[in-house]
């Protein structure tokens, strides 16, 4: 116990790392599935691509219990307030994944009915483009998200 534990930074940064490590492998996702991307979400979630290998296989259908909001599929103006409300109900720390190009930018649905990217209504942490993204792309995105969660440790 020679080391001065009260020195600023040392212990807290290690704790942050540990928390980040724990968090990134126990992602509780809330799948907000609306459209075509749901088909690929199913593929990723099921046994063939098996999202569970990355510790994200446990969908929580209550926003209170989830920490990653997966927005899967086109968001129309009609459902946008619902999505926003679900985001608001989630407890921090929380991350948002825009799954599919419709959620990233509106995709080719540039029309009166579709939200032109969910980042106009809530903050997005990870964009996974593709129409729909192939499962491999989703897994790559998920690993990126894990990196981000690890790096952040705690997030207000």
């Amino acid at each position, binding site marked *: 116990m020679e080391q001065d534990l009260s020195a600023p930074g040392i212990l807290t940064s290690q704790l942050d790392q540990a928390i980040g490590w724990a968090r990134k492998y126990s992602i509780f996702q809330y799948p907000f599935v609306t459209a075509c991307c749901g088909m690929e979400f199913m593929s990723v979630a099921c046994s063939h691509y098996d999202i569970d290998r990355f510790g994200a296989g446990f969908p929580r259908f209550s926003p209170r219990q989830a920490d990653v909001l997966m927005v899967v599929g086109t968001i129309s103006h009609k459902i946008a307030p619902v999505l926003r409300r679900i985001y608001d109900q989630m407890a921090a720390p929380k991350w948002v994944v825009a799954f599919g190009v419709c959620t990233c930018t509106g995709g080719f649905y540039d029309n*009166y009915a579709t*939200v032109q*990217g969910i980042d106009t*209504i809530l903050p997005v942490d990870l964009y996974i483009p593709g129409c729909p993204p192939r499962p491999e792309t989703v897994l790559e995105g998920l690993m*990126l998200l894990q990196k981000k969660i690890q790096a952040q440790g705690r997030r207000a």
Partner: protein
Amino acid sequence: MDLAPILSDIEALCGAPLSARGAGSDTVLTVPPAKARAAVEFLKAKHGFNVLVDLTCVDYQGFGKGTQNVSPAPEGRRFKLVYRLMALDAGTGLIKARLALDSWVDGESVPATIKDLFPAADWLEREVWDMFGVRFADRPDVKRILMYPEFTGHPLRKDYPIKKRQPLIGPADASARERLSPADLRPRIVE
């Protein structure tokens, strides 16, 4: 099924000669809007047209502009309702006949509802009102079905711009914001 007696029956019902187009399962009959409901009722009761396949609308504003030999909508009527009926043999699952009824209405007219004849028409009429603004009579409760109540206008009308957005939350015009580059086709983290 031979459609000729059916057509002459409907002509008698409408009291005027009707123009029929197409043949066989593509037969389309144009009926005056005031008689559309009676014709549907008649077809259902007398000729076994037991399934309403579809009820939809076409907006003909500006139709045929800039092309030759395309006749615009008759008498300045803007909308065409299409009632698509089918006589289905429930025992064999075969179609005895298909028939479509066209009925030209303008923006102001209120054709009679056929909701009581075919419950399927309930949602279809709501959709026609939502998308085209053609209201059906005897439907005080009609409300939007695909769009939200706050939405104004009828999006499938030709004069509704495809990009005129009416968001409930978020910016009114999202196209001005910074977008992802199309070249960025890999998953991307935002710091």
